[in-house]
């Protein structure tokens, strides 16, 4: 037996409230973080991800407060990301009770910080988020974007994934910018390319709209976990329904 494939609902947090973005913009409000976190826990979520999507200086204190409130009630692991700009930011989030931090722009701009964080807190709590888009500028065909998918970096997503593994990342949260918010399914080519070339777990993200999409990401995409937001927020499917479907299809899940 190895570890179960994980289903991870993602909650985009804007100033203390959960919202759902489409292509990282056009925000719609969806609810209270603590309430949603416990609902997902009870439905069988294996883990949760909170992304502070505004990540302004003013919203930081609100975020620490949300992290603390969530940690008080939640007894499954959770990751917090968005706008982490320094080791100090990372430490504050972990100290307030998050199990893992997810970094994106900071990792691209100061890669050594990944190594430093990993040494200090252990690889198990360092997630590097990679936002990738299909372009013709890099050799794998997938390019890394930062700043909430707004800034193209001219960095090859595959090379970057290998590099962050080397730097001590414990996991990669891989989002397809092209698919995010579309519900057309994960970018399986991107997911399997990255998953087959690193030894650390890869969380597929962007485009999950049905249980079948999640099944595809975990099998053809070779992902260790699948992240989804709106299909769970708007109760199109419950996490349990997705997991029961995966189990019927022969995927090892925690049920």
């Amino acid at each position: 037996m190895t570890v179960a494939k994980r289903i991870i609902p993602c909650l985009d947090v804007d100033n203390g409230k959960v919202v759902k973005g489409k292509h990282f913009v056009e925000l719609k409000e969806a609810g209270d973080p603590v309430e949603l976190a416990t609902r997902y826990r009870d439905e069988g979520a294996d883990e949760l991800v909170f992304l502070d999507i505004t990540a302004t200086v003013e919203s930081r204190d609100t975020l620490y407060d949300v992290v603390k409130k969530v940690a008080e009630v939640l007894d499954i692991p959770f990751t917090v990301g968005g706008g982490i700009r320094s080791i100090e930011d990372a430490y504050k989030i972990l100290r307030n009770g998050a199990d893992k931090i997810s970094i994106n722009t900071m990792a691209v701009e100061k890669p050594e910080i990944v190594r430093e964080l990993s040494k200090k807190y252990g690889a198990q709590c360092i997630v590097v988020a990679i936002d990738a888009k299909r372009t013709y500028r890099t050799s794998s065909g997938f390019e890394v974007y930062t700043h909430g998918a707004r800034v193209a970096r001219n960095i090859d997503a595959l090379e970057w994934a290998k590099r962050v593994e080397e730097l001590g990342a414990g996991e990669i949260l891989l989002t397809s910018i092209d698919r995010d918010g579309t519900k057309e399914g994960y970018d399986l080519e991107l997911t399997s390319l990255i998953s087959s070339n690193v030894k650390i777990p890869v969380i597929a993200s962007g485009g999950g709209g049905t249980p079948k999409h999640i099944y595809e990401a975990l099998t053809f995409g070779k992902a260790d976990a699948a992240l989804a937001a709106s299909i769970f927020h708007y109760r199109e499917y419950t996490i349990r329904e997705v997991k029961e479907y995966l189990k019927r299809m022969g995927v090892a899940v925690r049920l």
Partner: protein
Amino acid sequence: MELAVIDYGASNMFSLIASFNRANIHVKVVDESEGLGRYSAIILPGVGNFTSAVQKIEKLKNKILDSIVKGTFIFGICLGMQLLFGESEEGDGKGLGIFDGKVVRFPRTMKVPHMGWNLVKPKGYSLLLSNFRGEMWAYFAHSYYPKPSNDAIIKGTTCYGIEFASVVEEGNIFGTQFHPEKSGEFGRQVIRNFVEYVRR
């Protein structure tokens, strides 16, 4: 009743403390300067590196061992469970040495850390797992695991490349390699079982 959680610096104990608070148990974080006499149980939390944890608990070691001899309960979680043993392949230093055995690394063929949800299979009669018959999902995050010399203390096992001891118990001494504070409903019950046993 009050429980003591041993503070060894680096580890994030917030969730662990919250999980006991949810079971209506007051938990006090203690460091090397304090006595342990008034606590019903001692919790050894579990994140970090064996050697640095051993250094951090050095000054508390004798106090912990004295309390255990007097019947205080102890619950080691993850690295805290490994500290119940004498030595670890992770680094130098002596653990508490309450249990005979060694802490070893997973086979090279397996991805480490062993991180995520895996199954715990009860073995024999266990207080921590007393309400469970079949296998239960628990959350793990570790690269090393303890190999007890005495099989009788093993009360639950998990498979990851090899089958290893994920629950140990003997008398007033308990340990889980998984994180009960992160293992959902199953973990909640394990914590309740421990608390209820201490209370009796």
